[in-house]
Each structure stands twice: as C-alpha cells, then as structure tokens.
C-alpha cells in the first residue's frame, strides 16, 4: 500500500513540472495554433545549458533558471519570427513538418556537440530526502514542484493582469480582430512562442538536479507534453496543470505495476487513448 501512495506522491511532484512544460506547449498552440514538435528538444537544450553553467561556472541550477528561461525565450522568439511567421497560412501538416525539421536540427546539434551519453548534475542536494511518516520525498523533486507551480502562477497572472498578457489573449481569441484594432500580431506571436519556450527553459533547470539527460530524451519529453496538453485540453490553463499531475501519477503508478521498460509503451497507449476519447480535453464539455 505504501508503495502505491509513494508512487502517487512522486507522480504529483513530477507532475507539477510536466504541467509547467505542457503549459508552454499549450500557450504556443493556444495563440498560434502551432504544434511545437521541438518542445522536448528545447527542454533538453535548456538542461544542457543549465548543466554547463553548473559544472563549468558552479552556478546552481535554481539560480540559472532565469538564464535558461531567457535563452529559451530568445530561441523560441527566433523560431516564430524567422520560420513560423512565414507559414501561418499553410496546412497544419506542413507546419508540423517544419517544426519536425527544427526538432531534428536541435536534437542532432546536441548530439554532435555533446555525444549520446547520459549526463547528470550532482548537486549538494541531489540525493537529500525528507521523510513524511512512512513516505519519502526527494528534496529536488519537492523544490521542482513548488517552483513549477510558482512559475505557472506567475505566467497566469501575467496573462490575466498585464496589458501585454491581455494583447496575447486577444490575438489568440480573434486574430483578425486583433489586426483590426492595430495590434502587431506577428510580434505578439513571436513573443508568445518565446514565452512558451521560456516555460521549458525554466523547467529544464528545475529538473536538472534529479533527472539525467541525453539528446535522445527529447522525443519522450515532447510526447509526454502532448499527452498532458491533449488530456488537459489545448489552451486551457488549469486543465493542463491538472493534466500534468494526472500524467505524472499515471506514469509512476504504471512504473510500479509494469516493468520500467514497458512504462513507455503505457505512455504511448495513454496518448492514443486520450486522443481518441477526449480530444477536447477532460475539462471541456462534450461538443462536436
């Protein structure tokens, strides 16, 4: 029994980060209707940046979080500004193929630069734990959960309370309307993609202390965020957060029941199931 409760607890902790990563994907989709196939690659890239800031300069991942977020923002801004903004009107398959191209370039650039081996950052607190009765919590996971939720809340407030956030939501709701009232939609788009990427950038730093990385981890990160977003409903903020928790718990429970290798089979099956049953997300009413 403890085993299952423990798995659920671990799932919730890691699920918070899934939520943050997926919010980035959901923001990009919600505003531009672009599916960022390079999402996992951007996450891995941010992890490498954070890793090298830590090993070469001794900067703690929780400190370099902001550097990584800014770097990812610039990358995302550039992708939208120079690539996606040029193909806003082509069929969505072609847009996905473009993003697949971006993903291939990013993943293999990482591979060429740093090789295929897994790397892990050994921070002082990487292995420290807190006991909660019979349950044990890894400190880095706990911190990651709190930070991820805090950043998500920050983003939420930004979108709701600031003028720039309001323009982003306006452009997402009604592109033509936004153009009509004189908003520079293309710049808003680039900014939104940057913001979505910044979520992944921050998440990369946050998960570094407890998760080893390799260029090949990217695809599973991308797919996990797809599962979360599709489960939570594209563009729904709260839904995506809860979706993240749900997927985190499901994966960790799955790992207890199944062998860890078949855990991924379980994830893909979950993705198919979610796409088939609730393409509009669990928090939306049944429509269409």
């Amino acid at each position: 029994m403890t085993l299952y409760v423990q798995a659920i607890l671990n799932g919730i902790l890691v699920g918070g980060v899934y939520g943050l990563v997926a919010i980035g994907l959901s923001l990009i989709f919600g505003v531009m209707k672009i599916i960022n196939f390079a999402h996992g690659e951007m996450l891995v890239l941010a992890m490498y940046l954070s890793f090298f800031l830590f090993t070469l300069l001794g900067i703690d991942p929780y400190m370099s979080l902001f550097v990584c977020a800014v770097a990812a923002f610039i990358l995302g801004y550039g992708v939208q500004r120079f690539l996606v903004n040029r193909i806003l009107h082509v069929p969505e398959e072609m847009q996905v193929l473009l993003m697949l191209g971006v993903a291939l370039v990013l993943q293999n650039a990482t591979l060429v630069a740093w090789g295929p081996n897994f790397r892990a950052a050994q921070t002082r607190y990487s292995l420290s734990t807190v006991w909660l009765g019979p349950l044990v919590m890894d400190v880095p996971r706990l911190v990651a959960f709190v930070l991820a939720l805090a950043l998500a809340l920050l983003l939420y407030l930004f979108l709701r309370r600031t003028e720039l956030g309001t323009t982003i939501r306006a452009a997402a709701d009604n592109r033509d309307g936004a153009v009509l009232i004189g908003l520079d939609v293309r710049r808003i788009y680039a900014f939104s993609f940057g913001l979505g990427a910044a979520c992944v950038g921050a998440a990369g730093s946050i998960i570094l202390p407890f998760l080893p990385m390799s260029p090949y981890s990217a695809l599973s990160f991308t797919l996990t965020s797809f599962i979360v977003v599709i489960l939570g409903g594209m563009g729904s903020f709260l839904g995506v957060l809860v979706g993240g928790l749900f997927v985190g718990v499901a994966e960790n429970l799955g790992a207890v029941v199944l062998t860890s290798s078949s855990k991924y089979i379980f994830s893909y099956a979950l993705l198919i199931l979610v796409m088939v049953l609730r393409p509009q997300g669990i928090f939306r009413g049944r429509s269409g």
Partner: protein
Amino acid sequence: MRAFTGERAARRGPMLVGGALLLLLAAPLYLGSYWTSTLILVFFYAYTGQCWNILGGYAGQVSLGHAAFLGIGAYTSTALFMFAGLTPWLGMLAGGVLAALLGLCIGFVSFRFHIRGAYFILITLAFAEIFHLLALHLESLGGAQGLFVPFTGASWAKMQFKGNTNYYYVALALLVVITLVARALERSKLGLYLVAIREDEDASRALGVNTMRCKLAATAISAFFTALAGAFYSNYFFYIHPDEVLDVELSVDILLRPIVGGAGTLFGPIVGSFILTPLAELSRAYFSKEGLIGTHLIIYGLLLIAVVLFFPRGVAPYLARLVAGKRTS
C-alpha cells in the same frame, strides 16, 4: 496527372521515362559496386516514399509511423524464413497482409474519431513507437539483439544473393511495380476521391464520397507495399534491429523523399530519393568517419525547413515544367 501537363510533355514524358529505365537496367554493367549499392538505396527509399505517397501525398493523411509497416514486413518475413523455412517471397506477402491489417486498425481508430492533420501525425507516431518498444522486448524475435538472417547460399528462391547485382534488379522491379500501382491509382476513381479528400474532406463527404472507406483503402494499400520493402531490407542487409526498421528516424526517412520531391505527384518520391539518398549516404559516410553521428539528420532537418518555406509543393513540379519545355510565362 498533375505533374505532366501539356501536349509536348505528353510526348516527351514517356520517352524520358523509357530512356531512364533502359539506362537503369544496364547500370550494374557499367557502374561499380559502390554506385550500384547507392542506387539500391535510392530505389529502396523511392519505393517506400511512393508507398507513403499513396496515403500521405494523394490522400493527404501525413503519417509519421510508416516504420511500423516496414518493420512488420521485415520481422514477419524473417521470422517465417528462420523458424518455418518459408521462402521470403511468400513471407513478404504475409508481412504485407499483416501490415495492411494493422493499417486498417490504425486507420479505423484514427478516422472513426476524426483524427486529422497534425493529430494524425501524432497518433501514427505513437502507434509506431509502441511496436518499436514491443519488438525491443520480444526476446523470441531477438529483442534488443536484433535478428541475424543466416546466409544459406545464393538462390532466387530464398532471395539471397552474393554481390549486389541481383538485389539491384529486385529493388528496381519493386520501384517499377509501385510506380505502376500509383499511376493506376492516380487514374482510378479511388485516386480522384483521395485527392478530393485531401483538398476538402468535409466537402467531398457532402458530395457523397465515402471518405472513411477511401482513407482506409489508401492506408491498407500503403501499408501492404511498405511491408514488402521491409522483407527486402532484411534479405539485403541480413540483419534487422528494432532501432533500424521500427524507429522514428526511418519514418522520417520515408516521408522526407516525397515531401522534398513533391507529395501527391507520381514522380515526387523518385525525384526526392535521387536527390536525397546519395546526399544522405555521402554525408553519413563522411561525418561518421569524423565521429559526428547525427550530422546527416541536421541536414534532413534543414532540408525539411527549407522545403516547407520555399518549395511547399516539392521540387518535382519545377522539374516537370522544365521537361515540358515551358519557357513562356
């Protein structure tokens, strides 16, 4: 046929194709072994690209999971040959039937629940990855060790040859067959329906096209022929591994040729393969010598980006215009 229009093209087209075919038939006589094997790969990817084109090009359902069909073909024919002694020629067909059935299942699940566009890309990818992982864990099929096909002496019955000349002709024959199939499809009612579905699915349904049945037919045909390539693969390389024949990278490899050449055109996959395959082989050979694995995939990525930005309909239509000799406009 969209690619070749105009009267002069109608006369020039067949002559060009016939001439090229004659040149290719004689090619092993004047080309060395290296170029022959390069051409085998060109045919192989042109073939798989044409299979993909039936579903992804004509019907407009872009799949990122064709490795699943190819892998099933490879594993079925190899397992039947190794464990039951069945000739790969029949094993090939068995793999094709299995793949077609799988294609029908994937297609039914997707189309029944209106999964289209980007979501179809995702769901095909997810299905293919499941088969990839399953094969990695199935010890009876070699698991993560892969399967070595035993060489039991050169014979046509076993599709095992010394040297690569015979493989060359098998690959060329496969390419000719699939091109004829695609050409027949292009001129059939089904082909027209598929193009209508690609252009506007809801409208074609409103006009009475049974879109479900048409898309399923395209999926099954595409999957069946893709699996044949898998059987060829295992008999040519004598080794199959889940990371080779069931990987996403292969699915990208398969869709890249028709996208670059021109999806939904008869010669798109062939043109794409003649451009891309030698390029990929050269860069793979050059960069892996330098220890830079993955460089050819960077090139693939850049190509995908460039094609979507600058040639969204592929390069074949431009070539067709050259062939047609249209200098006006």
